[in-house]
């Protein structure tokens, strides 16, 4: 009887570890924000000069084009690759930027720490800075 209990316990123990080995990643990913990300494209915008002495002057400049939805918030999240417990994972990093004037449905990014990384366009929940995410695809 005692031996039977022991055998059942052993089988159960290995079955539980086996279950977690197969499903732990899926369970974890189900609890993470699922995002759609896309790198912003460079486009030529007409920028109004705001520097003293040149106010009102206009010039053409290549800037990253951000969609209207993100431009209104003046912030977006970019994807950053990092390492956690020996594995490569994706985190989000909040970028605060200054948008310019709208041109052909997009706003130019005039300032902000952005260098063409993939930007979170859509997320199934509210994101926090430094949070781990799962990329579902591109919009």
């Amino acid at each position, binding site marked *: 009887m005692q031996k039977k209990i*022991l055998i059942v316990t052993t089988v159960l123990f290995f079955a539980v570890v086996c279950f977690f*080995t197969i499903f*732990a990643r899926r369970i974890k990913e189900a*609890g993470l924000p699922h995002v759609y990300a896309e790198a912003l494209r460079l486009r030529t915008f007409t920028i109004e000069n705001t520097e003293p002495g040149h106010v009102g002057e206009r010039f053409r400049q290549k800037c990253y084009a951000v969609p209207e939805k993100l431009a209104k918030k003046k912030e977006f999240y970019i994807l950053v690759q990092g390492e*956690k*417990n020996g594995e490569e994972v994706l985190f989000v990093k909040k970028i605060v930027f200054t948008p310019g004037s709208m041109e052909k449905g997009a706003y130019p990014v005039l300032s902000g720490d952005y260098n063409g990384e993939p930007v979170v366009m859509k997320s199934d929940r509210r994101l926090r800075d430094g949070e781990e995410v799962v990329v579902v695809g591109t919009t």
Partner: protein
Amino acid sequence: MKKAIHFILSALALLFLFPVIETFFLSFYSNGGFTLKAWRELFFDCFIFYPMFWNSVLYSSVITAGSLFIIVPGAFGLIMVKKKISKWIFFLYLVLMMMPLQVTLLPNYIGLRDLHLLDTGMCIILPMLFSVFGTVLMHQYMENMEISQIEAARLETNSVFRVLLHIVMPQMKSCIYAVSFFTFIESYNMLEQPMLFLKNKRLQNLTVFIADADQYTGDILFPASVIFIVPVLLFYLLLHESLQQNVCKLTGGCL
């Protein structure tokens, strides 16, 4: 007097068990209260743990099963060959057994490097298959074996394999269990070999994971240690009766 001895021994037993009990409770303790945070971090945040756990189980199981195929015939050969050379070989075994692991690591490394086995599972399994301790233990046990039965069996068959299988092995049952257990423990706890022979983390075992626990985020050390203990504990509980019998026979006393 007897009660006092019992009390002292029980206190000592508890003292030895204390680190295990403490590890178990600390795996559920964080920020001054009961929590499953450490377990969650281990299971859902540290996926390298799984291949390392299964490597530990796989290496130990293969080494335990494989070494028995070498230990039993080896010890049987040393017992049955009544020549001076077998005594010399046994003496060499004893000398090898006395050698610290660190002495044999470098020759093992060179041998495995020349065989192009470094950074493969075989570099852990292959050297451990030839367990000197197991052969010595089995040899000592076989010295008390009923030789008359073997001689009678030899009249029936010429096959050494059949004699080994049908006459020797049933007599050696408890010793085989003991050797399996000790080999399993030895291979399950090995740390230096995977650290030296394996660069790929996904091939290393759980001992290395626990030794490097500070590299990982979260309080994963305690739950990982608890899981690390479980297979050995279960293996011991499954074999403990046979193990006790064998130790009794070897020591001439009883636990």
